[in-house]
């Protein structure tokens, strides 16, 4: 199957330069050739359709100015650079939080005997006082449990409050 024609270039040039279809009396030879040549006929059909579509697209285009495009690109590059630079900081913040939690758990475990003894003592004292005052009987173990919960909440608050405050304020 023949896929080329020697006159394709001429047809294409005439279309690209806006000389197609030719004015009466102009380019008669080429016009007749296109009429009889299937390859050039297809070329003319397709190229003319796409060329006029391009002209319409050029007319329709409402382009932003070069300054706008430059400015948006600059802003985006800046934002991406800042995000890239902040990434290690975020990782470090996460690590610091994990370390703080780990250290807290280790401290509580290590200091547990010295926390438990005073709590147990305080529980006993409170229980005896409650009995002496005639308040409904409260067991020492239950009081110890309550005191322990309070101690844990206060401890966690002391550790976490600065961290939470920092994270909230840094976002602002």
């Amino acid at each position, binding site marked *: 199957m023949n896929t080329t024609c020697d006159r394709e270039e001429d047809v294409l040039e005439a279309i690209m330069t806006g000389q197609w279809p030719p004015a009466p009396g102009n380019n008669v030879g080429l016009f007749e050739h296109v009429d009889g040549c299937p390859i050039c006929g297809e070329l003319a059909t397709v190229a003319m359709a796409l060329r006029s579509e391009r002209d319409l697209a050029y007319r329709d285009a409402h382009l932003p100015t070069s300054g706008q495009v*430059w400015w948006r690109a600059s802003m985006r590059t800046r934002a991406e650079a800042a995000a890239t630079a902040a990434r290690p900081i975020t990782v470090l913040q996460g690590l610091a939080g994990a370390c703080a939690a780990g250290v807290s758990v280790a401290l509580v475990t290590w200091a547990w005997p010295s926390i438990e003894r005073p709590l147990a003592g305080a529980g006993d004292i409170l229980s005896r006082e409650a009995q002496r005052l005639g308040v409904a009987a409260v067991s020492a173990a239950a009081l110890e449990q309550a005191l322990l919960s309070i101690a844990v909440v206060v401890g966690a608050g002391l550790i976490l409050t600065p961290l939470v405050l920092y994270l909230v304020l840094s976002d602002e």
Partner: protein
Amino acid sequence: MTLSDVDELGQVADALDVTFQMDEDAFRSFYDRTARPVWAYLSRTTGDNRLADDLLQETYYRFLRAGGSYSDEAHRRHYLFRIAVNLVRDHYRRPRFDRLPDTDEPRHPTSQSGDEAARAAERIDLSRAMARLKPRERDMLWLAYAQGSSHEEIGVALGLKTASIKSLLFRARRRLAALLGERERP
């Protein structure tokens, strides 16, 4: 690392100087020469003017960020078109020529003069025919016949060997001509 160090690092990041290899004046001049053909390509291959607006910005952003070294203006243009072609492939893989591109023209041929109605009908035919082509065929035909790109330029833009363009283009052209012919027949 203290919290103030963290703040300081954040400020450093914020103050990073933005520099592209191309200076602003050169970019403005290049943009003014190329934006219209790039937008036309994006608009007509996606069939969506709004998407074309977004992709135009993205094309120039990527072009600026890439900061490549170009032997001449033509090389630079080819690279720009290659970015646009890749963006269309990435963002809009499915053919969307089933929709007419947005234009200022009225859509109803009945309210138009004979010539305008015929032109609008031709556009619908072209849109539908293009929708039935493969994305690569659309790209190739647009670059060749709307943009007037050479085979070498098309090869660079589409990442194809120049030697294969001729036959691929011939097949795509034949297919589009046949589709347009189908529409013309009653």
